[in-house]
């Protein structure tokens, strides 16, 4: 440890040293080593200037840090360090106010906002504070000014759908770190477009999306080397995961040059096709084209100059003068210009192949005939000639869409290789299959496999449910009223950054199998409401699984009870109600007045169900799922929750979503993502997004609390889903494990049933241990080895229990 800061602190204030020492350890434990480092650095830096301030900062940071989302903590410290250097007197204010701001801006804008706040600080501490809290009018104006243009995150779903409507494939829009390009599966776009400050900013994004989707729509990625004249010696064999485009680029002496020339012509072709197909985009392209092309460079190297001249010609910009050999090198390509809209990608590739040598010759001449790739790359600035950064070396300001098959992820690369293998295998059988057809065939096979897997999971689930007895069971006296106002027993835990409001505390008893009795008032359950503002996870799931959600919703809609209830006394119906008919005749004879309500109608029975989901948020859920390998148990569980919640919301059944974790008997944390009274809106979705793995799981207490919440619901049947990864375990005390924990869980479930709640446990424990049968007793449960099937399985259980 660096003792420098400690000395400064000691000299300034001994209590500051103690605070620093203690909190540094707490931050390391509770949050992480890098944060602890940054904390130490910051306090030390302040201590060199002002001991008293150092003490205040040392004490106040930990709580505030806990409010900063993990991804923004580094930025939080970075900004504080800058402030400490220049405006130490405002540091205390920033420590407090910054946590609420870090999520609202990107790095640069946050700094700009802070600068404006600090400028106010010179005049009035008060004004600066309300500015930084975003309470003042000045702050509102500043924030609006900082947020100009269009943020991709606001429109990415819209643009994804838009791209799909154009090309009819499941492309996805993703942030492209300032650039726009496509790899054939995704359309990457700049995170923010702020070039015009009006509607044209969006138009620019839209044009870029149309271009990115246009590569797919008009077949750029369908390049087929078999349709091109092979170079002497034939095409080199494809590398694993390599796209046909990459493989083709590789056949050129200078890959980057070939790529640039092809890109220009192919862009012009796709643009021509787009303009022809979509008159509206042609209009937008005229409005934003100049900005999209960026400021044009004036290269001097002959080949680069020729390529630039080609670009300007194709884009109808001011011409770039070339010498005679330069003109000659691009002339044959330019002659294609008017016909581009009628060509396919193979024809463009062929033209590039035919006329590339002319442009390459310009370059070779410039380096005295030496091959450019051996040593010439630092002497000439080729377009994209720098192999390490082929994109940025050429026109860094350019926003135009580009083709970049190398950006595809591992899955897509694998898919591409498989498609190629499929095609080659077909060729061996004497069947002719284009690469595009092979891709489609491969996707089809994948879909079939998934469907098969789902079907098997469903069948197993059905069989399991048939074996389970879901009714009856021992009764336990539930006379244990929740208590409130318990003093906080546990301290020393770092405040949970995912928690917005800590709510009431509740005390529950616990079953001790060793004494065969309850321990009264034993466990404190602390209810806490999760924070909002975690959109990424939910958005991603909602987008990816939209189709799935729709299907699930319809499945739930179909889960209507098939029974019927008779409604009597109607003026129209299936049958005549004889009793009433007789009565009506009698009344008619006696009084002259008779009832018309003589019919009976058989109406379908309605459902009356309330559901609570209780999610195990212990640290073991951070592990990867057994089957998939890549995704964490908790993420899959959350995803399943979101899917099912969307469906439940659509059919209007009341439901709650809760999570639990904690440490020790006086600190069972019960997280509320959605209470029964909350609507299922974006805020609730964000709170589900916040659910993350925490510490231990003391299942018994959490089940007791959840079942009480559920029991308060006015529904005919109440279902509690416990999603866990297996063993209840709380290392925060010396005995909550193995048999003790299992017996307590079993009793808690039995208590739940006594309260009129039907629990069902879904356990993701691939080892399938024997204790489950004992622990869950006669409560329904199932062990699944493939969490991805979770939503489907919840539907199955729901069907059995809810009706």
């Amino acid at each position, binding site marked *: 440890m660096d003792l420098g800061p400690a000395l400064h602190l000691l000299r300034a204030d001994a209590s500051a040293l103690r605070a620093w020492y203690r909190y540094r350890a707490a931050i390391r434990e509770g949050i992480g080593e890098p944060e602890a480092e940054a904390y130490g650095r910051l306090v030390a830096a302040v201590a060199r200037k002002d001991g008293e301030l150092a003490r205040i900062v040392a004490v106040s940071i930990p709580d505030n840090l806990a409010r900063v989302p993990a991804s923004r903590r580094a930025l939080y410290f970075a900004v504080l360090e800058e402030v400490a250097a220049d405006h130490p007197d405002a540091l205390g204010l920033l420590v407090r106010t910054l946590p609420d701001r870090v999520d609202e801006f990107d790095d640069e804008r946050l700094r700009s906002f802070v600068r404006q706040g600090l400028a106010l600080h010179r005049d009035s501490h008060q004004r600066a504070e309300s500015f930084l809290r975003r309470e003042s009018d000045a702050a509102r104006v500043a924030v609006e000014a900082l947020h100009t243009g269009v943020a991709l995150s606001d429109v990415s*779903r*819209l643009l994804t*759908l*838009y791209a*799909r*409507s*154009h*090309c*009819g494939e*499941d492309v996805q829009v993703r942030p492209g770190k300032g650039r726009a390009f496509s790899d054939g599966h995704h359309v990457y776009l700049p995170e923010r477009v702020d070039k015009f400050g009006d509607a044209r900013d969006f138009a620019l994004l*839209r044009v870029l999306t*149309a271009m990115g989707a246009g590569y797919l729509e008009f077949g750029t990625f369908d390049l087929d080397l078999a349709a091109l004249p092979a170079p002497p010696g034939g095409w080199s064999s494809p590398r694993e995961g390599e796209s046909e485009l990459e493989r083709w680029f590789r056949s050129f002496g200078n890959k980057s040059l070939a790529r640039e020339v092809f890109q220009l012509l192919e862009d012009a072709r796709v643009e021509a096709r787009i303009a022809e*197909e*979509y*008159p*509206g*985009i042609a209009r937008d392209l005229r409005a934003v084209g100049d900005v999209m092309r960026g400021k044009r460079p004036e290269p001097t190297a002959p080949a680069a100059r020729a390529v630039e001249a080609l670009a300007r010609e194709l884009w109808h910009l001011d011409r770039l003068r070339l010498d005679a050999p330069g003109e000659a090198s691009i002339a044959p390509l330019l002659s294609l210009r008017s016909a581009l809209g009628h060509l396919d990608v193979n024809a463009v590739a062929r033209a590039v192949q035919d006329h590339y040598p002319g442009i390459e010759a310009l370059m070779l001449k410039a380096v005295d005939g030496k091959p450019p790739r051996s040593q010439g790359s630092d002497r000439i600035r080729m377009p994209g000639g720098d192999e390490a950064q082929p994109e940025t070396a050429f026109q860094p300001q350019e926003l135009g869409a580009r083709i970049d098959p190398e950006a595809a992820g591992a899955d897509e690369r694998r898919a591409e290789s498989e498609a190629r293998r499929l095609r080659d295998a077909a060729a061996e059988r004497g069947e002719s299959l284009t690469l595009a057809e092979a891709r489609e065939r491969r996707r089809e096979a994948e879909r079939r496999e998934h469907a098969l897997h789902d079907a098997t999971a469903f069948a197993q689930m059905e069989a399991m449910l048939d074996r389970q007895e879901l009714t009856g069971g021992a009764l336990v006296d539930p006379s244990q009223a929740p208590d409130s106002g318990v003093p906080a027993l546990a301290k020393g835990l770092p405040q949970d950054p995912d928690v917005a409001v800590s709510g009431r505390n509740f005390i529950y008893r616990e079953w001790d199998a060793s004494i065969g009795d309850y321990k009264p008032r034993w466990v404190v359950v602390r209810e806490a409401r999760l924070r909002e503002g975690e959109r990424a996870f939910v958005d991603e799931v909602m987008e990816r699984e*939209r*189709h799935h959600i*729709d*299907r699930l919703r*319809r*499945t739930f*809609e*179909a*889960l*209507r009870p*098939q029974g019927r209830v008779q409604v009597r006394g109607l003026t129209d*119906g*299936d*049958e*005549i109600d004889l009793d009433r*008919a007789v009565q*009506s*005749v009698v009344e008619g004879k006696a009084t002259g007045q008779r009832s018309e309500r*003589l019919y009976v*109608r*058989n*109406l*379908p029975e309605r459902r009356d169900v309330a559901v609570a989901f209780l999610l195990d948020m212990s640290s073991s859920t951070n592990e990867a799922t057994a089957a998939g390998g890549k995704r964490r148990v908790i993420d899959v569980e959350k995803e399943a929750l979101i899917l099912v919640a969307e469906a439940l919301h659509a059919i209007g059944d009341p439901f709650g979503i809760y999570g639990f974790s904690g440490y020790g008997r006086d600190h069972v944390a019960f997280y509320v993502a959605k209470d029964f009274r909350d609507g299922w809106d974006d805020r609730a979705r964000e709170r589900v997004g916040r659910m993350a793995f925490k510490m231990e799981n003391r299942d018994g207490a959490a089940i007791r609390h959840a079942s009480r919440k559920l029991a308060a619901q006015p529904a005919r049947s109440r279902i509690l889903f416990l999603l866990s990864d297996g063993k209840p375990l709380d290392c925060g005390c010396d005995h909550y494990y193995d048999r003790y924990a299992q017996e307590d869980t079993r009793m808690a479930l039995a208590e739940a049933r006594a309260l009129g709640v039907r629990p069902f446990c879904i356990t993701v424990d691939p080892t399938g241990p024997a204790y489950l049968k004992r622990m869950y007793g006669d409560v329904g449960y199932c062990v699944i080895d493939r969490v991805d099937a979770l939503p489907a399985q919840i539907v199955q259980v729901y069907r059995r229990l809810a009706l």
Partner: protein
Amino acid sequence: MKQLTPQLSDYTVPSEPFYRAIDDEVELFTQAANARLPVLLKGPTGCGKTRFVAHMAWKLGRPLVTVACHEDLSASDLLGRYLLHGNETVWVDGPLTTAVRHGAIVYLDEVVEARKDTLVVIHPLTDDRRVLPIDRLATVLTAPPEFMMVVSYNPGYQSVLKELKPSTRQRFVSLEFRYPPPDLEREIVARESGLDAERTGRLVKVGEKIRNLTDRGLEEGVSTRLLVYCAKLLVHGVEARSACRAAFTRTLTDDRDLGRTIDEIVADYF
């Protein structure tokens, strides 16, 4: 006891409904009618199933009784029921009974929406017995040769669980409908709405692009019927974008992003 059967004239198709064949469906339907086979029409909403049945009824010169199925539809809604009129009890035929008595084509639209126990009443009519037992009248009606059962369903938005029972399904010969190919769809939209060829062309392209979103956000693509509606709005002088918003965007989705996407697709063409 009195029995009421609705008049035959209520169910005749007076003039030829416009229908443009996409495939061999007219021929198949005609032969199925000759062979007295029940027919199942599959296809997305608004692709012309109902129009096709009306057209065929006209062509075959048979009355057409249409029943829109829903989940509260009961067997007595189809067969008929007793009603009390003053001191009299009257039996009123339901649409199915009416169709059997008149030798009409009965068309059960969106048949999956009906509950499975309701559908069982059509079973004896759809095999070689061609009879309709009516318990409450204690009679069994035998269907005349002209009687024909036609049902439709939309496989797109029905879930795994909401399917026709195989025992019901296997009583029909099936015709599959889809949205017409662009050339035909242009012709249909132009003919139905009277819109000029140029704007019809653009409208049909908008439809194609929106259909690309089916299963990628939209539950079902835009139907030919909606294209016709939109074209009619255009003919009546509504500005293109607001016509499309009324006919497509607001009709197809409540999802804001999806709605804007459709607006942008419209802006690609208008």
